[in-house]
């Protein structure tokens, strides 16, 4: 397990958030420390993706109450780009296609904005090409993808690899990967998972949002949280994910109902 002296990266307290006047998150609490890998599981519509977008600062979601702190600093007032620059990374479930914008140029601009924050020098086209070709190996991607428009015409698996490539370039402190495993075949899953493992650092952390145990066979989580109805209702270790896989979400429902009755 993780030592208690390690620094807290992300701390979410009693977070309520809504979209179009409908509350989706009803009081989420979560603490993520350096070196930790967390998995968040739960049914469709339980609020997992909303949580990830709220952390990244999506403008459609309104924070009703509660707080999100990154390294002890309130981030609710920060723009999405500011959150990205200080090291918060969201790997999208459905990465959008951006026609006409070169993937290479997009990756370069993004990388440089993070480097600027880290007080590193900006990379010109040639320097960046060296860097990106090196990082491409992590996700076993063909350099031809750099010449195409961002995600345009990429298969599901290629889009997800492109997300992990971005993670490799931006070197975030916390990565929230929203269903990165969905739509991947066995080989792609292995490549993506090994990429995530290679990129994890003692001073960074990862939150995996997933439906399936199979990703957790490749990446071992320190904590598994179950979300339902906009809250984290149960936290355990990787055994919890295995139980869940065996018995389905009904088992959670039963558990919670019993708990409520006991109260």
């Amino acid at each position, binding site marked *: 397990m993780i030592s208690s002296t390690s620094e807290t990266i992300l701390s979410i307290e009693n977070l309520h958030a809504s979209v179009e006047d409908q509350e989706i998150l009803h009081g989420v609490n979560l603490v993520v420390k350096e070196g930790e890998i967390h998995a968040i599981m739960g049914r469709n519509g339980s609020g997992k993706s909303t949580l990830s977008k709220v952390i990244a600062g999506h*403008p459609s979601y309104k924070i009703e109450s509660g707080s999100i702190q990154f390294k002890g600093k309130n981030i609710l007032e920060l723009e*999405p*780009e500011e959150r990205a620059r200080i090291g918060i990374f969201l790997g999208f479930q459905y*990465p*959008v296609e*951006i*026609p*006409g914008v070169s993937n290479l140029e997009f990756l370069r601009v993004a990388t440089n904005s993070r480097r600027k*924050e880290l007080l590193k020098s900006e990379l010109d086209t040639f320097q960046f090409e060296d860097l990106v070709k090196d990082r491409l190996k992590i996700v076993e991607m063909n350099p031809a993808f750099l010449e195409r428009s961002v995600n345009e015409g990429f298969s599901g698996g290629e889009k997800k690899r492109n997300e992990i490539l*971005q993670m490799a370039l931006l070197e975030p402190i916390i990565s929230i990967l929203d269903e990165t495993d969905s739509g991947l075949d066995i080989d792609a899953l292995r490549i993506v998972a090994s990429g995530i493992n290679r990129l994890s650092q003692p001073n960074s952390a990862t939150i995996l949002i997933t439906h399936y145990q199979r990703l957790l066979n490749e990446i071992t989580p320190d904590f598994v949280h179950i979300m339902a109805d906009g809250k984290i209702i149960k936290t355990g270790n990787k055994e919890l994910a295995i139980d869940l896989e065996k018995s389905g979400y009904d088992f959670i429902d039963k558990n919670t109902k019993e708990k409520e009755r006991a109260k």
Partner: protein
Amino acid sequence: MTQSNTVEEIVSQPYKYGFITEIETEKIPKGLNEDVIRLISTKKNEPEFLLKFRLRAYEQWLKMKEPDWSGLTYSKVDYQDLVYFAAPKQDIKKKSLDEVDPKLLETFEKLGIPLSEQKRLSNVAVDAVFDSVSIATTYKEKLAEHGVIFCSISEAISEYPDLIEKYMGTVVPINDNFFAALNSAVFSDGSFVYIPKGVECPMELSSYFRINSGDTGQFERTLIIAEESSSVSYLEGCTAPMFDTNTLHAAVVELVALDNASIKYSTVQNWYAGNEEGVGGIYNFVTKRGECRGKKSKISWSQVETGSAITWKYPSCVLQGDNSIGEFYSIALTNNCQKADTGTKMIHIGKNTKSKIVSKGISAGQSKNSYRGLVSISPNAEGARNYSQCDSMLIGDKASANTYPYIQSKQPQSNIEHEASTCRISEDQLFYLQSRGIDFEESVSMLVSGFCSDVFNELPMEFASEADKLLALKLEGSVG
């Protein structure tokens, strides 16, 4: 959503080129009549045939009515309240750049068009037009070695009257339309290009038009002739100071391509667009047309239209020669109260003629942006083909975009394809870029550039990055 408001704010960028050059100007009195036309012709020392040309045009113009079919509304121009000739006072017959008023050189330098020998662009020859006259043309001697003529139209009229007489008014007849007739009567200067047989023009040619006086109409005239198996790429740029009155710009551009010749004509138009309430700005009422007279000839128009209060123009191709090709690539960005009604006409006359239209309209603020185009296939144009693609992007919820494609085909063996789309800047795309650390502003301009990339790819290299910067500039500003 506040997002769209902020997008609107950032597309509102102050106009960078709105300064006025303080220079002593020689102007003739306001108003238009036969004497004024004679006066312009005398001032320019023109041959008799040209005076006659002007007078014939004037006679036609008097009989014509200002058109109103476009649906554009604007306060009518008082043609008697305009000055038809304005020129910076200086020795008209300047022999070299050293004799040009330094203030003028400074003006062009401020606009990013350095003319002096040390600073001028290395691979682009420039003809700089200030109000009614051409100030200077660079690289003339170098071009002359290849037999290429590049000079002001005034100079061409006195030096090469035969070419002028042979070609002027043959593509855009003097009575073509109201504004073309007016231009033919009073045009003051513009550029002339002649590429001899078999010559590939060794450098890009470029004209830069600057309106400085507030009450002067600008009526420039451009004529480009590409002889058999020759080719040329020509660029045109425009800016004007900010005045709260509307200034009329009614140019005529004629292109002639003979057998196997190719002309590429690119425009970056950034005339003053008026303020946020729509006061002031240029009326850009221009007639541009090219004739592919020869077999296998090719004319390609590309334009980036960002300025003017109102833009009303349709660079067109008459595809006369068999197997000739016409192309039109356009980006039109309108903001605030700007209106643009622009597009092209592709007239297929010869056999197996081909045309391609790619139009990208971006409307922000309360602006109106219309694509209007005609594809016409005559009975003899067997095997003619056209492909048109018209895409519109809306920013905010007060802007509008329209597409009016007119298709007339009298030839069953022809093939016409038309695709059109309208989209908004998508919040998901913006968020994606922002969540990678890219500024909101930069994200918007990236999305707009991406939307326009098909057209950028058609612009000459140096110009493409300039046009991209210009769009970014228009889209830049403080994020609210």
